[in-house]
């Protein structure tokens, strides 16, 4: 069984809200002192793949990323977690390409890497949260797509995919090859790699391609706006005000308080 797991490196979504700023002119988030991390759902996908390999054996896991050169760190970490091979397509264009562009790039890289029985992506990324890459990738590859999967079993040549639904969960049987988007669950919390493996990961080979090497329309990929543009980017302003109601007795205070509530909410 050949598994491809796609990883996205993003700006640490856990930075304190107060530290988060956007560069309105460039319509992107400011790096500031935030670190770059692997998107959590992508790590859930990798963990799900690793657990699948532990149970089923005979499985090769390749990780693929499309991103800045720094995305190499995400791939190295995946190698430390014991992925078998890694490939990076370097993005030297729009730092925030739309999901269709990403899907095209991933599909092209997928073809170059070989054939896969199972292609896994995170359900969405913690930066823009579009949640469309998985579905679009399946479309590009002309494969079925199962979303919100949290665990995978191999049963008699078929894959049993357990997916979360609004009301609980369901298990689908799918014939590989198939694309799945992975969501988090208590069982696919990404493992901590061993320090030994972290050190080894830097000695492992890592394939790198430029957009021009993929045989796609590289200029269109660099532009990265096939079907939408970010017109404006701003942090919503939340205003909080604190007001004290006054009154000499408790009754007066309660009355004043009630009156203010009516005024503010326009109730009654």
């Amino acid at each position, binding site marked *: 069984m050949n598994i491809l797991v796609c990883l996205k490196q993003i700006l640490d979504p856990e930075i*304190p809200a*107060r530290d988060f700023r956007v560069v309105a002119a460039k319509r992107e988030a400011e790096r500031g002192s935030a670190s770059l991390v692997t998107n959590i759902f992508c790590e859930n996908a990798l963990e799900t793949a690793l657990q699948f390999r532990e149970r089923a054996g005979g499985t090769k896991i390749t990780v693929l990323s499309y991103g800045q050169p720094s995305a190499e760190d995400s791939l190295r970490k995946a190698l430390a977690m014991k992925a078998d091979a890694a490939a990076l397509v370097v993005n030297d264009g729009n730092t925030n390409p739309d999901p269709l562009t990403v899907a095209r790039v991933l599909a092209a890289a997928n073809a170059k890497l070989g054939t896969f029985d199972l292609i896994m992506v995170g359900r969405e990324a913690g930066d823009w949260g579009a949640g469309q890459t998985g579905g679009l990738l399946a479309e590009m590859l002309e494969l079925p797509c199962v979303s919100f999967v949290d665990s995978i079993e191999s049963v008699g040549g078929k894959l049993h995919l357990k997916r979360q639904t609004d009301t609980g969960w369901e298990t689908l049987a799918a014939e590989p090859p198939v694309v799945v988007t992975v969501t988090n669950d208590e069982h696919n919390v990404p493992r901590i790699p061993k320090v030994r493996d972290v050190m080894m990961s830097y000695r492992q080979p890592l394939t790198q391609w430029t957009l021009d090497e993929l045989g796609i329309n590289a200029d269109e990929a660099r532009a990265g706006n096939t079907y939408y543009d970010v017109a404006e980017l701003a942090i919503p302003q939340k205003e909080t005000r604190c007001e004290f109601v006054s009154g000499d007795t408790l009754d007066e205070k309660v009355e004043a308080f009630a009156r203010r509530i009516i005024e503010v909410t326009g109730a009654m």
Partner: protein
Amino acid sequence: MISSAEATRQIYWNISHLWVMYVLLLPTAASAGYGIYRHFSRWRRGLPTARFDRPAERGKLLFKHAVAQRRTAQNFYAGLFHRLISYGFVILTIATTVVALDADLGTAIMRGKFYLYFQSFIVDIFGALVMVGVGMAAARRYLKRPQKLVYTDEATLILVVIFLLCLQGFLIEGWRIAATNDPWGAWSPFGNLCARASRALMSVEAMEWAHRGTWWFHLVVSFGFIAWLPYTKMMHIITAPLNIYTANLAPLGASLKNIDFEQTESFGVNSLKGFTWKDLLDFDACTECGRCTAVCPAHTVGKELSPRDIVLQLRDLMHEHPRDAFGLASTIGTANGNGQPASITPADHEPTTDKEARKPLPIIGAVPATSPAALWQCTTCAACMEACPVFIEQMPKIVDMRRYLVMEEAEFPDSMQSAIMSLEKRGHPYSGTQATRLDWTEGLNVKHLSETKEAEVLLWVGCGGALIERNQRVTRATAQLLEQAGVRFAIMGREEKCSGDPARRIGNEFLFETLAKENVGNLNKYQVKKVITACPHCFNTFKHEYPQYGGKFEVYHHSEYLARLVAEGKLKPLVGLDKKITFHDPCYLGRQNGVYDAPRELVQISSRQSSIEMERSRNKSFCCGGGGGMSFVDEPADQRVNQERAQEAIDTGADILAVGCPFCMTMMEDGINARKGERDVKVLDVSELLWEAAKPRPLENSTS
């Protein structure tokens, strides 16, 4: 009257067939020699470490703690009987040597005044004192029965044999004095006592018979004892002084080993082979006194961790299964596919070859004391090391094993994992915090190093001081005091990363090194020379651990720096509060770095009442429970170290518990809140206390 210059006695009076003694000496020496050799050959299997440098300092330590037995005497009762027995033994050994010299080499030392004062009187007194000491030890062991002791038949037999040896000595002496009418008998008061009793009860002939029989019996028992010594805990007669001489001379804060990641193949320790020879010597130096476990905070609150048992059970493993423990070629048992020994083989053959046939026996979890659960309870407070009379290094061994679990297995508690992950990603251990490193500066005019060329000192805030709301108030107080005193200081702000202390104590040395190198790089970029920090963990790391990464700084705990500013008159605190204050020593400031007085000075300045000491204070201070990454772990509700300590503080009757560490602050606040009941007890940092006394006050007439 015979002149005292001729005083002596006949050696071997009443004894014939002396050759038997010399024959018996051979197996005795062989057994003792082999026992000692075996110890040495085991220690030699350890990794190298330099412990013979600075002989003068080591000699001093040896004198203080092996000869004067200062640490042993920290427990008055045990210290007393131990001195009685050990000093007595030294005197008795000298006396026996004198006899041997005179008898075998024909010297004539045992004459005159020396014979009377030393060989008769002093030796007699010390012989009796040994018996008193043994009696005291037995009374403690069998009447008081303290829990910290190890109760073995061996321990009992040792006491019995020592007692018997002395008793036999007095009987033999008494019968000789009585039967020979020794004119100098009175110089041996206890022997003389026996003589007088015997004269009343026995004929001279009976005395001669009894003397001869007991003499031979005494000989056999003492030779047997000598032959047996190296196989018992009495081996500490040799190993304890050796261990003290080769002790780590650095402060306790600098006791962890360094790992060279370029050279090392396996990280951390999971076999006896991974230890240094000094670690192995440690095992054999243990006297089983149990002091380390008695002071261990984790053990005190009822957890499994017992530093004594780690030492003793690893020692037993080394003694009983040396081949497996060191992974040596074995004639018995074969390795299975995993390289693990198929069976543990008895220790009937001592390893003689270095040829390795298999992987050494893993030690983590091999004995109950090294279970991962126990290893993850250590707060790295070093109370065990401070208490150990023979300077055994228990805590670094625990960290060695943690390193293995973290770096080779990635097996460690979830809450520590999330701290480590956060350290990796964000350079601080507080996963999910919404605080930033600059929140505390709001409203203050604090400069960043990059904005000012003037700064003479760096205020290193630390993650605890910046990201935990309660500690932000401490950092503010410190900064305001520095400003008031006119100190030109600056901070690193967002460029600061965790010093690496939690990573190192949890066992992720690799992450520690990464953080250390990054911090040192930044500090050197700004040419920082002097550093103040309110965090004893950062303090310790800067002081002892950064120099090897090229970071050489003059480091001050904020209490030291502030106390100096007060002494220099740069801060002028007013008469302090009318409150009773007790101070909790942070392990990494006090015990591990010897700073006890500066924070106490600040406490003293801050209150009109005299401060109160808790029973466990200064070098014997009891950990808050937060060191060694333990502040990230949720302890079981009935085994909380912080509550044990908080109770002690509350019981002093103090109104304020003063602290000097961000971890202590949160641990103690939680503990006090859980235990204080009705009475109001506040937890304040020493800088907050000082700021309370020194902050500018509104003028009297400006308030209505």
